[in-house]
């Protein structure tokens, strides 16, 4: 049976929901911004798929959901008319001398995930995986099941694909999903507003993150490198065409203003200490986003009347969204 469905919010979850639902239903997308959805966390994210590394801080069920999501990504991307960079060649975790203790405790706290185990690496092993890091680190950890996506390409390609399907778009519209008149026009409403639902969703808060995108022709890293840092998990994620995403900071703040000097210095010096080739890199942009999170930092899929809401993906948007959207879609079918 085909339903009239509103997808409210055109960030990462909104895009995934629209892609999935438009295969069988009439979908209308509402977004307060334009097609860029500039306020969505997924547009800014480093788009890491790192269930093992994240298992250090999140519960095991979420890490396992991350594994499930990774297996869904290739199918999702195959629907798109353009190729979107997706990679699953693992993550390399390294630490500077003074942060060795953090690396050790990180390794000890990795949770067992199916058959995916972290591998301890010595200097020569690191050189084999990433020749350009040869001699820089003598100890590291390899997390084989992990991957990443080019989020900017995904945002563009998903929009292009949805435009070709008969999806209607209502940009620049702030929608009250609880409004009876609005609800009357649809059989289901998928609320993917993230922080846009603040106020309606109990205890939803924003967690500020700053991310820098660089063009670094002198750097040839083939997979994401995570650097142990006393304050935040820092990734250097290589995207196509020698672009690198460095991120992200994590600050308990709703402020969505431009990145601070301190954060910028921290991110860039972290990148430079991993690879001196970043010295001559060009800064493409420095972006700030707010991650929507509940107080336990766990996502929620809620069904109330016609409204199904997906929210609180915190720092795990790309890692969890495919599974959460599948869960929400299953409520309709």
């Amino acid at each position, binding site marked *: 049976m085909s339903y009239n469905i509103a997808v409210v919010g055109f960030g990462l979850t909104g895009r995934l929901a629209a892609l999935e639902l438009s295969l069988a239903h009439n979908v209308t997308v509402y977004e307060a911004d334009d097609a860029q959805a500039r306020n969505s966390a997924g547009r800014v994210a480093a788009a890491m798929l790192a269930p093992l590394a994240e298992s250090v*801080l*999140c519960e095991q069920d979420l890490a396992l959901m991350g594994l499930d999501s990774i297996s869904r990504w290739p199918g999702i991307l195959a629907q798109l008319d353009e190729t979107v960079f997706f990679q699953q060649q693992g993550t390399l975790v390294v630490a500077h001398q003074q942060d060795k203790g953090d690396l050790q*405790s990180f390794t000890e*706290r990795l949770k067992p995930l199916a058959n995916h185990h972290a591998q301890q690496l010595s200097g020569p092993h690191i050189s084999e995986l990433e020749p350009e890091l040869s001699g820089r680190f003598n100890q590291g950890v390899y997390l084989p099941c992990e991957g990443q996506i080019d989020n900017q390409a995904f945002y563009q390609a998903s929009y292009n694909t949805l435009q070709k399907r008969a999806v209607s778009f209502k940009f620049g519209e702030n929608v009250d999903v609880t409004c009876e008149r609005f609800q009357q026009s649809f059989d289901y409403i998928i609320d993917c507003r993230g922080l846009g639902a603040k106020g309606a969703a109990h205890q939803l*808060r*924003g967690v*500020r993150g700053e991310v820098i995108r660089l063009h670094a022709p002198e750097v040839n890293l083939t997979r994401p490198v995570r650097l142990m840092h*006393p*304050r935040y998990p820092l990734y250097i994620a290589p995207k196509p065409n020698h672009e690198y995403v460095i991120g992200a900071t994590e*600050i*308990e*703040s*709703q*402020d969505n*203003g431009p990145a*601070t000097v*301190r954060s910028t210095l921290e991110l860039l010096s972290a990148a430079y200490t991993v690879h001196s080739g970043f010295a001559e890199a060009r800064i493409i942009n420095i972006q700030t986003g707010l991650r929507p*999170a509940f*107080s*336990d*930092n*766990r996502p929620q899929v809620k069904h109330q009347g016609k409204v199904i809401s997906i929210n609180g993906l915190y720092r795990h948007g790309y890692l969890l969204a495919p599974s959460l959207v599948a869960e929400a879609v299953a409520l309709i079918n």
Partner: protein
Amino acid sequence: MSDSFSIYGEQITSRLLIGSALYPSPAIMAESIIASGAEVVTVSLRRQQSAAAGDDFWQLIKDTGLKILPNTAGCHSVKEAVTLAQMCREVFSTDWIKLELIGDEYNLQPDPFALLEATKILMDDGFKVLPYCTDDLVLCQRLADIGCEVLMPWGAPIGTGKGLLNQYNLKTIRERLPELTLIVDAGLGLPSHACQALELGYDAVLLNSAIAGAGCPVTMSHAFKAAVDAGRFAYKAKAMPEKEVAAPSTPTMGMPFWHQT
């Protein structure tokens, strides 16, 4: 039996002051704070950019119902610290300030000179200053001279978890400044470290990473609560004197002669 200590006249019973950073989630933070039995929680305003921006997170802390001790974490100059202290007073409606002024980026060591200067400015402005300082007796005396009723010497550099690196210094400060409220702040990693600080006669400990960075913060919170109680009881009970030569706990006088060598 009431056993409390004073922070500028306010009686506090729990000898564990707890931080609010670096927990896996705000929910775990709230649970850990409750488990610790702490009455005072420290909060950093530094990186939120504006007062309104941090509202959601601070509301979670305000919801704990604890007394809030704002800090000036991350400040490197007197001006920065004074401005931030004034902001904190507005945001949290308290004249308490944990004054933290970093002098060395690598080990986050307090800058004693700037600290003294900023403390003076803030005391004159009506603040009740709790300076985070090194374990230097003369610095502590100078801070006391300008009116500090509470001092917070470090156990070890922030976040190292190394425990009390210089027990001699800490002990000297306790002995020489008996009227002051002394709180060991920073560097603790294990409950036994907190216990040692209380055994030395320190009124309380302030910690964050030791709980927030534990594998299970809530359980570690319980452990610290118990350790602080143990240390306080031990201090009040007055420990036996340490000796260089063994002294049997069972007197040998009445022993049958064939057991004697």
